[in-house]
């Protein structure tokens, strides 16, 4: 049975604490590294990486550019120089391969903030609050591009908490923290998992980039699922799990939704080791459960 406050307790019992937090630890490390390499310069004078998440230069040769910011600039009427374009193409290529929302779970500095909000939200047993549709972020993404085009500015960067937090830390600015506080409180008090799950246009953009990504999580061992629901409790985009986990033998065990952030938390918390990372062409047979309780979605489809 699931314990709502500590999903993954069975997993800890079975795999040990480390085993049940492997991907989470790796992810936090990754987030720390992505922030840390930018801080090496200003804090230690080691200038391997310059710039910030919007645009950077590594070892004076590798340019990286946030493609969404560049795209806003382009619809606002500026054709960027080759360096920025190259940087954006590299970033696009990488995320198209590993999953767009890998940005969200492995890189974005807001993720620990919204994760913390969610953790506290569960601790305090607060109500779900406002739950706009997940597609809202796509609408917002469209709005951001439209405003950029209409005003001729890179509009989202005026308020984007994602880059503002990172830029603030790297360049020693402070006002961005207010926005981050707002995101935290929003997720905590107004809308559970509201920011990353429903609103953030950056996440929406990267989701689109990762439509056909190669790296995917698979519910390969779904036959062993004992319905503890721990994976649903930890997944930031829980809707993505159902089709894979509850699918019949004929249906793929791969979590193919571009909303999946490849955070690997489901792999961690599952005591039955149902999930694992694999690639989207993995065709290993993964029988569905012996006594499938048809999912509501499938019932509807069958009707």
């Amino acid at each position, binding site marked *: 049975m699931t314990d709502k406050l500590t999903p993954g307790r069975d997993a800890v019992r079975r795999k040990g604490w480390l085993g049940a937090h492997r991907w989470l630890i790796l992810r936090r490390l990754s987030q720390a590294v992505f922030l840390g390499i930018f801080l090496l310069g200003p804090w230690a004078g080691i200038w391997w990486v310059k710039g910030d998440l919007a645009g950077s230069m590594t070892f004076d040769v590798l340019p990286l550019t946030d493609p969404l910011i560049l795209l806003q600039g382009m619809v606002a009427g*500026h054709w960027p120089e080759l360096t920025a374009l190259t940087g954006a193409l590299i970033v696009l290529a990488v995320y198209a391969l590993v999953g767009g929302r890998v940005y969200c779970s492995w890189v974005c500095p807001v993720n620990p903030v919204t994760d913390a909000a969610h953790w506290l939200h569960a601790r305090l047993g607060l109500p779900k609050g406002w739950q706009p*549709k997940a597609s809202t972020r796509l609408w917002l993404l*469209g*709005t951001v591009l439209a405003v950029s085009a209409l005003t*001729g500015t890179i509009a989202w960067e005026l308020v984007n908490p994602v880059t503002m937090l990172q*830029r603030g830390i790297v360049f020693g600015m402070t006002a961005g923290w207010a926005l981050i506080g707002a995101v935290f409180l929003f997720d905590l008090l107004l809308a559970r998992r509201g920011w990353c799950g429903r609103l953030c246009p950056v996440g929406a953009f990267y989701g689109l980039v990762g439509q056909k990504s190669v790296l995917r999580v698979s519910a390969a061992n779904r036959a062993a699922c004992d319905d503890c629901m721990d994976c649903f409790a930890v997944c930031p985009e829980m809707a993505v799990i159902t089709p894979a986990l509850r699918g019949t033998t004929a249906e793929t065990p791969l979590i193919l939704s571009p909303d999946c952030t490849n955070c690997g938390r489901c792999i961690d918390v599952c005591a039955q080791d149902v999930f694992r990372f694999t690639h989207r062409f993995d065709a290993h047979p993964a029988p569905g459960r012996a006594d499938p309780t048809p999912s509501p979605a499938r019932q509807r489809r069958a009707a």
Partner: protein
Amino acid sequence: MAPRRPAPPIDRRRFLTDAARAAAGCAVAGSLLALYARDARALPAEALRPPGALDEPDFLAACIRCGLCVRDCPYDTLSLADLGEGAATGTPFFTARQIPCEMCDDIPCVKACPTGALDPALTDIDDAKMGVAVLVDQENCLNALGLRCDVCYRVCPAIDKAITLDRMHNERSGHHAIFLPTVHAEHCTGCGKCEQACVLPEATIKVLPIRLARGKAAEHYRLGWEEMERKGGPVVEGIIDLPDRLPEEAPDFAPLMKLPGTGQ
């Protein structure tokens, strides 16, 4: 005829309401963002953009706020604007009075810019136009009062071109000169060295954005004396250049013709 399915009308209505709601929400959010974006275009006068920066509207479409220009400036001149600091959030600027631009020969800030927000076409720093210095307060400028401070003039990297000391009569003392710091916009890069160096508690020479610092002559205006020099003769053929009248007291004044009956 295919049997009518009962469910769709409700689904469609629901879909339409959802879409309408999302659209309305986006319209509100979008309008707020657009208003904010419009405000963000008003760059405060003290915030100067780095060398080669595109005009402000274009700059806001081009600069991705990466801060690479900031990092590569050897003099820590540039910084990125914090939220609510005046310049659009995250964009690079400098304040002349604090740290001016040292006008590096190799312009590392422009070289670092990946987007072209700092125009790579700027290859000679003397062509930079970050602003224009203006002697804003002649009532306090020491040179304008008749003293010889000269500091702004001395520190100017384009000394004797961007800034000259123009000699004029000191009306107050009656027999001294005033060496008035005079900026020539054509050569002034707006680096801000003069403003930073001004010895007074509040600088009397300030670098202003060009839109504030400069007026503009009407398109059709021509300066007669310049045209004449260019042409090497009267601008209009056959025009009679009448002699200039001189005051009667002039010692070497000799009238062109003598008037009858004046006793001369």
